[in-house]
């Protein structure tokens, strides 16, 4: 029963992804290969669409994965799965708001969870980087180390890194701007070779 499975998987994501937005990404990066519902490069496309459309990123990703897996009902079920643990937890926490905020135990748990979230996202990010910046197939055939790298991609990554982190006038711009720039570069320089 695909809908039950979708709901259950996204319930898990909603329950364990801590730190908003991108925190759902490592869970989905593990979910795709395990279930065969979507590939890593489809997931990367979903991140891009989720970042450039309105709404919370985590919710957008759930809707997208759900739709890709089982159409419109899939999108609804995945989204409901994602938000159900949130609703339950917040309704419980709201009753004990003051106690929760001052609880040493809760603070200590989150002291451990936040760096873990950074580590999980970094690991999942590396898998997308390997996909878009390395060309392992050509390397496997030619054995030439220079063939391992997608030079156009690396150059674009360097430019985007500069624009988003160090270049004062552009670094505060919305991610959708950089996504548009990258799409234009991809078309202009035939990134997919198509």
């Amino acid at each position, binding site marked *: 029963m695909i809908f039950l499975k979708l709901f259950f998987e996204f319930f898990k994501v909603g329950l*364990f992804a801590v730190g908003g937005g991108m925190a759902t990404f490592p869970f989905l990066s*593990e979910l795709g290969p395990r279930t065969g519902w979507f590939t890593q490069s489809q997931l990367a496309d979903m991140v891009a669409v989720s970042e450039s459309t309105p709404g919370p990123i985590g919710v957008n990703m759930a809707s997208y994965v759900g739709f890709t897996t089982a159409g419109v009902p899939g999108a609804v079920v995945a989204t409901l799965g994602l938000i159900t643990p949130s*609703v339950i937890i917040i309704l419980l926490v709201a009753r004990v708001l003051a106690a929760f905020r001052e609880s040493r135990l809760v603070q200590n748990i989150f002291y451990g*969870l936040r760096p873990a979230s950074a580590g999980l*996202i970094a690991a999942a990010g590396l898998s997308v980087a390997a996909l878009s910046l390395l060309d392992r197939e050509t390397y496997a055939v030619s054995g030439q180390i220079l063939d391992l790298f997608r030079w156009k991609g690396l150059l674009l990554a360097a430019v985007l890194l500069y624009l988003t*982190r160090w270049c004062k006038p552009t670094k505060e711009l919305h991610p959708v701007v950089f996504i548009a720039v990258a799409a234009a570069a991809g078309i202009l320089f035939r990134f997919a070779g*198509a």
Partner: protein
Amino acid sequence: MNDYLRLFGAFARIGVLTFGGGYAMLPMLQKEVVEKYGWATEEELMDYYAIGQCTPGVIAVNTATFVGRKQKGTLGGVAATLGVVFPSLVIITVIAAFLANFADLPVVKNAFAGIRVCVCVLIFNAVCRLWKKSVTDKPALVICLAVLAGSLLLDLSPVVFVLLAGAAGVAVKTWEAKRS
């Protein structure tokens, strides 16, 4: 009934008008929840938002549940939450259906190959932001690197790392408290 619809509507508006989630959402929340409807004070909203960040799940959803619950109890929380996700569902479904039809065009393939490079950079930046906020001392650094190495090398669900990291946080803090 009207109250539930108002909650749903206000949070649907917040959902439509927040681009990128997270911090982008705060000004919209302030405008709708504090200024327009007076559902919560500025301080309450900041509290909800802060707790929304350190409870599992999507921050926007957590905050919506808080505000809705305060207004109309459990059902209010559900109405506000459904409101905040409704625009995402519609917009993403339309885009996904549209893209699925054009995915094989060369121009679309090239564009997404470029976009994927940008996604790497955006993820890198997200990690840097989280790193700055969370890796504040040596034990936190160890937890972060251990989880990174573990998830690269071992074929385990992220759930396992989350549970272990929570336990590690408690262990480290308990040990520090005992020593001092």
